[in-house]
């Protein structure tokens, strides 16, 4: 008797409820799916870019050091070499610190660090031919396309 009453009450709305159930189910599914896709793409893309930028920065600074362009601590020489070595789609800033007279012991070569971009940094130790210790901090980021 009770079952019959329920059937009579909801019988004509069965299709609507099923459709609503399906729609709600799909909305929840696609929401979960979208969120996970977003996390997945964010996780792989940003980290990969960061890793690549770090490697580029490290290689460029190592080359500048190996080619003995840091020996004279000449701003123009370092800047020219930095521009030549950096790939076209990235920009960088080198901060060279040490016990030397130029710039009261700090030289900065390269672009300005952007506020709203992913900036990767790294540090290396180096020694000039006249035995001056240098701490090189580099900041590297993707250039605006």
């Amino acid at each position: 008797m009770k079952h019959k009453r329920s059937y009579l009450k909801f019988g004509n709305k069965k299709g609507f409820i099923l459709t609503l159930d399906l729609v709600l189910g799909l909305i929840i599914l696609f929401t979960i799916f979208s969120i996970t896709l977003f996390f997945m793409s964010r996780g792989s893309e940003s980290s990969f870019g960061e890793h690549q930028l770090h490697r580029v920065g490290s290689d460029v600074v190592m080359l500048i050091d190996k080619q003995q362009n840091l020996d004279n601590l000449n701003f123009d020489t370092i800047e020219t070499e930095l521009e030549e070595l950096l790939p076209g789609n990235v920009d960088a800033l080198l901060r060279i610190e040490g016990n030397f007279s130029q710039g009261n012991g700090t030289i900065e070569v390269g672009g300005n660090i952007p506020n709203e971009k992913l900036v990767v940094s790294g540090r290396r130790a180096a020694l000039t031919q006249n035995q001056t210790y240098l701490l090189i901090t580099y900041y590297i980021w993707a250039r605006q396309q």
Partner: protein
Amino acid sequence: MNNKGISYTLSLMLFSLVFLALGLLFFQHSVEVSELYAYSSFNHKMYETDTSIQNMFSEAFLINSPVTVNTTKTSLTVQQNLPVNFNEQESLMQELKTYVENDFNKVNISLENFFSKHLLTLKPYDIAVKFEDSKTIEIENNSAITGYLVSLSFSNNITGCSINVNNGGSLLLNFSATSSSGSCSGDYVNVADANINFNNNGNAVSYIIDGNGKMTFNSNAITTSEVTVLFTETDNPLLEIPIDIELVDTAFKFSKNSYVTFPSLS
């Protein structure tokens, strides 16, 4: 009708569960990829720190050393004035250690072995050239060593040259000590052991290859010396100095110890 509804609901549930599992899988994957890249970046930073410090110390060693080192694929030559004074080099190394440990908080550098042994090791054979003290050079026996070329130059007279070389071994020995007045020289093959002694202005000079193949050169006189070790050919000889670089990061449970190693071909 009821069976159809149940089947429909179950299918939809299964479908939802598959999607949910797929979603969770993607999420887990993204987290793992992020962690992997973070760890990879960390490793690269550690590698960069380590190589740059090793490179800096090797440059310091080569630039500011009382010992000049030249290497080919078959020989290692050390040139120095005896007695050797390492004070300036030690002072520079100590200064660099202080700078590096201040700037890189994950790095500890130990100079104790370098200061006490003044050891230079040729890789891959592990041929060890050791400055036992300011007047003595030692090279331990090594199966890769094929001979020695020794050239000494003195400003004072050489007297009392005594050369005692025994055959039966496999070493080549070319020994030459010259001065403005007097010399002490010899060229030998198949050497098993050798004992060469002379005086220079009253100061004893000795060159010994003992029965085990260990070479010891000691000079109480002031001399410009060049000792070349000949060895079996190798394409990529490396030099190692016992400056211990330790990198520790507790967050990543990372720890690495290495000596300063650098390519040595002239």
